[in-house]
C-alpha cells in the first residue's frame, strides 16, 4: 500500500529563521512531508508587496510573498504559527499575534491552515504541540515521541550555532542526520569583530539584507550574530529602567545580546538591522543607540525597506568598518606610546565616539 504523505507548506519567512528545526523534526516525525517556499527572491518581494497594504513592515510583505509562492506548490495544508509568548510575561510583536487571522483574512483560495499557537501565558509548549498533533490525527504516544525528538534536535541546532555555525550551515548539519559533528575552529586573521544584531528574518535572509554577512566577511570582518553568543545570557529578562522589564520576546534576545556585548566589550562594533516601520525596533533601537553612545561602542542602525538601494547601505557599512579599523589602529598606536597621559586617550576616544 502506498502511503501518501500530507504535504504541509511552511513559508520560509519570519519565525522560520528561528524555530524551523523544531517544527521540521516534529512534523516529519508525525509523518508529513514539508514543502518550503523558495528562498526570498525579487519575485517574492514583488508579489508580496503588491498584495499587502503599503504601511506594513517588509518582513510581513515577504510573508505574503512566501505564502503566495507556496500556493503554487500544490500543498494540502498551510502551516501558520501563532507565537504569542514563549516565556511568561513576554509577548511577540502584535503582528505575530494576529498572523493566522491576517493570512486567513487577506489571502483567497487558501488550503486549510494549520495553526500552531504557542502561548506560555495560557498553556505550556507541549500542550500546544499536542493540539497540533491532534489536528493531524496522531496518537498521544506518537506526539510525545515526536515532540521529545524535536526538542532534542532544536537544542542540538542551537548548540551548533553557539559553536559558531551560521544559520544555513547549522541547518545543513541538522539535515545530514550526523549528530557528532564538531565544527572546526577556523583561525583567520580579521581586521575587526562586528556583531550583526537583529531579528532572525532580517539577519539570516541574505536577500533582504543584501548579503551583508558575506560582504562583511569579504572585508575580513569577523561577523557574530546573536545566536553565536553563549546560551546562558538569554536566561534573565532584560531590564530597561528600574521600573520596566522588557516584554517583547524577539527583542529580548536582541537586548540580552547587546547588553552582553556592552558588558564584555568583546566587540569592535555593532550593526543593528531593522525593518522600516517595525514597531518594537523603533524603540529598542533608541535605547541601544543611547547606551552605545554612552559606552563609546560604535553602533549603527541599518533600516531595510524594499526600496533601499544596495549601494547606499553598502557605503554606510563600509564607512562604518573603515571607521572601526581606523579607531582600532589609532588606539593601538597611542597605547604604544606610554608618555601620553591617560586623560588624552579618553579625550581622543570621545571624539571618535562623537561621530555616532
Amino acid at each position, binding site marked *: 500500500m502506498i502511503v501518501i504523505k500530507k504535504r504541509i507548506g511552511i513559508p520560509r519567512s519570519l519565525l522560520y529563521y528561528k524555530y524551523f528545526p523544531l517544527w521540521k523534526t516534529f512534523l516529519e516525525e508525525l509523518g508529513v512531508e514539508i514543502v518550503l517556499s523558495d528562498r526570498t527572491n525579487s519575485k517574492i518581494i514583488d508579489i508580496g508587496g503588491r498584495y*499587502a*497594504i503599503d*504601511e*506594513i513592515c517588509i518582513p510581513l510583505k515577504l510573508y505574503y510573498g512566501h505564502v503566495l509562492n507556496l500556493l503554487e506548490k500544490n500543498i494540502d495544508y498551510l502551516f501558520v504559527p*501563532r507565537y*504569542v509568548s514563549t516565556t511568561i*510575561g*513576554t*509577548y*511577540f*510583536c*502584535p*503582528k505575530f*499575534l*494576529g498572523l*493566522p*487571522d*491576517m*493570512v*486567513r*483574512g*487577506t489571502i*483567497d483560495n487558501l488550503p486549510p491552515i494549520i495553526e500552531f499557537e504557542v502561548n506560555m501565558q495560557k498553556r505550556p509548549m507541549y500542550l500546544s504541540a499536542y493540539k497540533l498533533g491532534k489536528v493531524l490525527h496522531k496518537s498521544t504516544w506518537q506526539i510525545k515521541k515526536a515532540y521529545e525528538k524535536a526538542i532534542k534536535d532544536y537544542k542540538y541546532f542551537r548548540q551548533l550555532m553557539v559553536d559558531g555555525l551560521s544559520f544555513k550551515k547549522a541547518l545543513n548539519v541538522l539535515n545530514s542526520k550526523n549528530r557528532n559533528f564538531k565544527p572546526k575552529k577556523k583561525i583567520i586573521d580579521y581586521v575587526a569583530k562586528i556583531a550583526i544584531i537583529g531579528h532572525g528574518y532580517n539577519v539570516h535572509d541574505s536577500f533582504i539584507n543584501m548579503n551583508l554577512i558575506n560582504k562583511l566577511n569579504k572585508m575580513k570582518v569577523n561577523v557574530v550574530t546573536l545566536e553565536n553568543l553563549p546560551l546562558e545570557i538569554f536566561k534573565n529578562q532584560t531590564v*530597561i*529602567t528600574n*521600573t*520596566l522589564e522588557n*516584554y*517583547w520576546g524577539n527583542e529580548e534576545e536582541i537586548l540580552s545580546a547587546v547588553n552582553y556585548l556592552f558588558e564584555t566589550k568583546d566587540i569592535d562594533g555593532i550593526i543593528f538591522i531593522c525593518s*522600516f*516601520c517595525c*514597531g*518594537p525596533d*523603533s*524603540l529598542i*533601537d*533608541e*535605547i541601544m543607540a*543611547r547606551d552605545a553612545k554612552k559606552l563609546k561602542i560604535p553602533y549603527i542602525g541599518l533600516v531595510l525597506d524594499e526600496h533601499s538601494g544596495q549601494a547606499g547601505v553598502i557605503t554606510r557599512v563600509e564607512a562604518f568598518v573603515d571607521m572601526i579599523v581606523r579607531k582600532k589602529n589609532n588606539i593601538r598606536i597611542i597605547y604604544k606610546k606610554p608618555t601620553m597621559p591617560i586623560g588624552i586617550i579618553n579625550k581622543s576616544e570621545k571624539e571618535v565616539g562623537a561621530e555616532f
Partner: protein
Amino acid sequence: MKVTFPHMGNCWPAFKVLCTGVGAEVYLPDPNNVKQLDAGLKHSPEWVCFPFKVTLSNFIEALDEGVDNLVMATDCGPCRFGFYYAVQERILRDLGYDFKMYYLPQGDLLDFKWIKLLKALSEDKSLLNYFRIFRTARLFLMKSQLIQTVEKLEGKIRCYEVNKGDTTHTLNKCIQLIDDANTFNELNKLRKRIKNEFDKIEINKRDNNEILKVGLSGEIQVTLDPFVNHDIKRKLGELGCEVHMNLSLYDWIKHKFHVNFHRKYLEYLNKSQKNIGGLQMDIGGEAFWVMGEYIDYAQRGFDGFVHIYPFTCMPEITAKSILTKWYGNKYFDIPPIFFGFDEHSGEAGLITRLESYVDLLKNKKEKKNNGNGRK
C-alpha cells in the same frame, strides 16, 4: 507637589481630578499644538508611533515650565505603549532634565496597582488617605463617564446644527463644566445639565434617509485627540454625517475593570468570523474591537466606517489589512476608510479624501433608497 500628565483630547478633567483629588497640584500643558510638537519631534525616535511624540512634547513643555513630576500611563504589552514612559524618561534625562516619573499601570486595573500611584502622589500618609483615594477614583470615573456622554452627543448632533459651530461651542462649555464640578452632587446634577445644553442647540431634523450614519473607531489616543486627528469628527459632522463612536476613556477604563460587556460582544463578533479572518485574540491597541465595531456597524446597517490610527501602528495595520480585504470581497456591505496620522499628514489631503468618501456614501445610499422604492 506639582505634577503634569499628557493630553488626550477632552479627557483632561478626568486626569486632573485624579491628581488634585489626592492633593497634588496640577500643571496642565497647553492643548496639543504644532509649536509644542516641534520639541517632541526633535527628540523622538524617527518612526515611533505618533502618540509617543505628542506625549513627549507635552512633557517637554511642562518641564520647561518647571514642573518636576510627570505621570504617564503604561501597559504590560504586547504593543509599544508599555515602553513609552521608560524611553521617554531616558530621552528626557539625556536632555538634562531633572524630574520624577510616575507611571500608572493600567494593564489590568483589577490588580489595584493604581492605588500605589495615587498614594505616591498624595503626601498624606495617614490611613484616612484611603478614603480620599477611593473618593478620587470615583470622581475620576464619574467625570470620564460625563465626558463620554458629551462626546457621544457631540458626534450625533453636529450634522443637524443650524448655526455652524454651536456644537463645538457647547462641547467646550460642557467640558469646562465637568472640570469645575468637584463633588458627587454637582456631578450628578451635571448629567441633566449637559443634556439641556445640547438640547439648546438649534437643530434642523432632516429625513432619516438623507443623513449618513458613520461609525468612527481607531487607536485611542488618535481617536480622542482632535489635534492629532485634525478634528476628523467635526469634519465628518460638517459634511453631514452622524458620527457614532463607542470608544472613550470611560469605555477603556470599564474594559480594564473587566466589566465592559459591549466590548465582550465585539470580541464575540470577531471570534465568530474565524473563517474569514476575524481576530481571535487581543493583539494590542484597539484592533480587536475596531474589527468588532466594523462587523457590528455593518450588521446594524450603517453607511460608513472610519478607522483612524497612528501611522505605523502595528495592531491597527493588521486590522486595516483585513478590513480592506473584507470589503473588497464584499463580505460586509459597508465601505471603510482609513487614515493614518503622523506629523506629515496634511489637512488638505484629509479633507479631499473625506469629501469624496462622503460623496461615495451618498451615492450608495441614494441607490439603495431608490432600489427600495421601486420594489
